[in-house]
């Protein structure tokens, strides 16, 4: 007989067959952060698009999530976008720093960032499972 550990959400039954009724259910894999880290880089703005690499020791191609914070700003944001420094009903002003993408191979994580002026940028990354 298979063994199961499960914790239902408040108001839901542990006998439920609906996975969304559980905070945790051992039948379903949940991703583990196998490594996390930070990397601080200076992007001098020339050329505008630059890549920065971080060696990792996973021994496989990891699934990576990453976020950046630009010095002097309090918020972090993921790839495929700019930081937004001002937004209202009529205006959206970005910080001019686009986090293009994050990718990984067996050895390195690569971060691509685009900006036309010098910026100090802090990167936080998480390695999850093997792709």
């Amino acid at each position, binding site marked *: 007989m298979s063994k199961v550990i499960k914790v239902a959400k408040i108001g839901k039954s542990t006998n439920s067959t609906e996975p969304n009724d559980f905070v945790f259910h051992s039948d*379903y894999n949940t991703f583990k952060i196998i490594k996390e880290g930070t990397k601080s880089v200076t992007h001098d703005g020339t050329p505008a698009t630059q890549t920065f690499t971080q060696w990792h020791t996973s021994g496989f191609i990891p699934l990576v*999530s990453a976020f950046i914070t630009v010095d002097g700003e309090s918020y972090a944001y993921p790839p495929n976008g700019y930081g937004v420094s001002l937004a209202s009903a009529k205006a959206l002003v970005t910080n001019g720093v686009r986090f293009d993408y994050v990718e990984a191979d067996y050895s390195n994580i690569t971060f691509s960032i685009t900006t036309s002026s010098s910026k100090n940028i802090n990167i936080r990354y998480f390695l999850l499972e093997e792709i």
Partner: protein
Amino acid sequence: MTKVIKVALSGYNAETDTDPDHFSLYVDQATDYILIKEKTRGEITVGATISETVAHGLGYVPFIMAFFESAAGVYRKIHGATDPASSSPYFEVDSTNLTLRNTTGSSVNFSYYIFYDNIT
């Protein structure tokens, strides 16, 4: 009484600590830090300028992670249909299918992960 399963990292007290970063497993009905639940994963090669669909059978829009092979042995996470890199692969998901779209001129390898967690 709420149900709890907690495994603290070395050096932390599972009975008194409340910072989830100090636990390898933190399951608590009251705080409700839901752990995402993987349903399936797969790899698929999508030909140039076409799409492939993967039926997930959930009947609602699930949480997805997807990646494409940007160069041999290099995988890039996909963040949506408006990737700033031109002609970049992307994905969409509805209550029936995960659709992987290849807008490039050559075939692309995708890896995807479908979770039970409902995002709508």
